[in-house]
């Protein structure tokens, strides 16, 4: 890939620096590099939730005038939105990621059931199959106090028609009835025996292991589960279906948007070359190669249905549906802090340390204080 770029662009050398294997460590790496000034990197590969912070800190080059609206049309709309901060573009999406619902299509078909459309239907299907002894657990989700729980909660919140923070008005929606309903739903899955009590301590891998062992009907997770669940030795190989997350009547569910994209460091001495490189790396040809090699989810709409790709990954057209329903976590500069506030109170509510009302009221108040204190950064451009 690098060689192809260098062949097409003589005079530009592209050096890829390999980072640590954990997302938060890469974030630390960039943060330290930017703080020391004069970042050694020209191009930054960013998770969707860092973009506002890095842009707010003034570390990224504004790409708005460099990339035309027409060019952006080819990308999934949500992925482009995830690269924006206060209406300006700072990142071109290179790979998409979104939360989705995995379900055991064999068990549902056996029982003559349709895939659920609402949380209530999902619960009743789970209970039915659990009673019949088809599966030990109904629904698996990630409830440990960490970023993944915030992502999971955004989806449930969307499914109840609620919201977290409105990035334009900075209104906080956590103390509205929808947020309380969302928590009551999640608590209910545990108290009704649909989810194991340990979901409040689980991360992605804990839930995948149980699902892949064939012990659960539904799993909320990311696209990475698909190839593993359908691996040679997987007990649920070929028995898994995927669909967008469910919601309630009148409120279709949402999928939390993840994904990575490329931005340019403000202190770069090679802005033009860097721009060429990110155009190349996000291009159709380059993404196709990434996808076929590593199984990434594309950020360009056309690739979800490209024949070469669907030949290898038959589920990609369905993935497009998921990505199209994706919701962003609030693109505000203080996202990390806002997320921590939510995570703490969400975890306290999920583990019955506080009532949903109490927890969400406190979380909403703290979030409002945070946004109030940070207003200068929000209005500065």
């Amino acid at each position, binding site marked *: 890939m690098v060689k192809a770029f260098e062949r097409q662009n003589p005079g530009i050398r592209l050096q890829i620096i390999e980072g640590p294997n954990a997302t938060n460590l890469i974030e630390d790496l960039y943060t330290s590099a930017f703080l020391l000034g004069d970042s050694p990197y020209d191009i930054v590969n960013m998770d969707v939730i860092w973009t506002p912070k890095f842009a707010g800190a003034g570390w990224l080059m504004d790409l708005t005038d460099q990339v035309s609206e027409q060019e952006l049309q080819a990308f999934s709309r949500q992925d482009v939105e995830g690269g924006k901060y206060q209406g300006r573009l700072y990142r071109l999406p290179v790979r998409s990621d979104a939360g989705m619902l995995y379900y055991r299509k064999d068990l549902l078909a056996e029982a003559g059931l349709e895939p659920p459309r609402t949380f209530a239907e999902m619960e009743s299907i789970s209970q039915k199959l659990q009673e019949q002894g088809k599966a030990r657990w109904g629904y698996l989700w990630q409830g440990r106090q960490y970023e993944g729980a915030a992502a999971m909660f955004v989806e449930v919140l969307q499914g109840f028609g609620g919201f977290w923070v409105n990035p334009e008005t900075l209104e906080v929606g956590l103390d509205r009835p929808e947020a309380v309903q969302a928590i009551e739903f999640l608590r209910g899955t545990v108290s009704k025996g649909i989810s194991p009590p340990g979901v409040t301590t689980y991360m992605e891998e804990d839930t995948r292991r149980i699902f892949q062992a064939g012990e659960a009907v539904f799993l909320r997770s990311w696209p990475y589960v698909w190839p593993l669940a359908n691996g040679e030795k997987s007990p649920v190989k070929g028995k898994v279906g995927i669909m967008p997350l469910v919601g309630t009547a009148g409120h279709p569910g949402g999928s939390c948007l993840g994904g990575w994209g490329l931005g340019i460091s403000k202190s770069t001495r090679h802005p033009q070359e860097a721009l060429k490189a990110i155009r190349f790396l996000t291009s159709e040809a380059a993404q196709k190669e990434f996808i076929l090699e590593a199984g990434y989810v594309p950020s360009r709409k056309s690739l979800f249905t490209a024949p070469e790709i669907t030949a290898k990954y038959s589920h990609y057209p369905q993935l497009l549906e998921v990505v199209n329903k994706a919701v962003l976590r609030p693109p505000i500069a203080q996202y990390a802090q806002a997320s*921590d506030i939510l995570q703490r109170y969400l975890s306290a509510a999920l583990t019955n340390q506080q009532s949903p009302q109490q927890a969400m009221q406190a979380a909403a108040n703290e979030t409002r204080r945070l946004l109030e204190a940070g207003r200068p950064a929000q209005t500065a451009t």
Partner: protein
Amino acid sequence: MQAASGNTIRAREQRTGFYLVLPAVLLLLLVFAYPILRSLWLSLFSQNLATELKPVFTGLSNYTRLLGDGRFWQTFWVTARFTTISVVLELALGMAIALVLNRAFRGRNLLRTIAIIPWALPTSLIALGWTWIFNDQYGIVNDILLRLGLIQTGVNWLGEPFTANVAVIFADIWKTTPFISILLLAGLQSISPDLYEAYSLEGATPWQSFYRITLPLLMPQIIIAALFRFAQAFGIFDLIQVMTGGGPGGATEVVSLYIYASAMRYLDFGYGSALIVVTFLLLVLAIILCVSLLKARSRKLESLES
């Protein structure tokens, strides 16, 4: 004449001594005093995303914010509780293991080596292992307890504030007790067996000889081990980050996790520095208190002896 030359020799020696110490002093100043003073300085500024990372002098406002910051005080008490419980239990257990390892028996050297292994392994890997061990579904702790009939349904170890704290303290004790027992073992081996022999001839019970000989003579090592562990446990990060991430609901969040989040994730450097300064001062205060208590106690012991 004689006296004068003695003076110059001493003066010369002192000067040599000074030069020899100088590099170490400079190094200490550089790696200890500089960061602490710099944190103190930074803590008087607001430097965060709201100021676009430019330092703005705000005096003591970070400190007034800290006084009302429930999250800080919660993390502080969690850390204090974690540290006290784990260090006390580690000392007791470490002492017991050291006493056993001090006996002559076959395979003692092998056992000593094995005993140190937990301490030598990287903490984050250990923590991952403990996370699995305490998993509510496939964890081995629940499996053992269920088989023994001690519990009827699996305990959600990392999901309840109390059991999560028990789990992280347990993991920490497992990990660092060997460190204490090795330190104490070294101390035990420096105590002459003659003392015990003489004392037992006078009809002392093993318990008496432990209390009157071993404990007082081992006091320096105990204090060193306790101080070491105290400082280390207070700064615990990796074990808790991996096992619970501070959850559930912040019930296991320790000070270092909060400081890390403030500085590296929220980019709130002024406030992060204030957190560091206050934690540092409280820690120094705790150590001074502990040491003076121990000193008073050992003085009492000495006066009893004489």
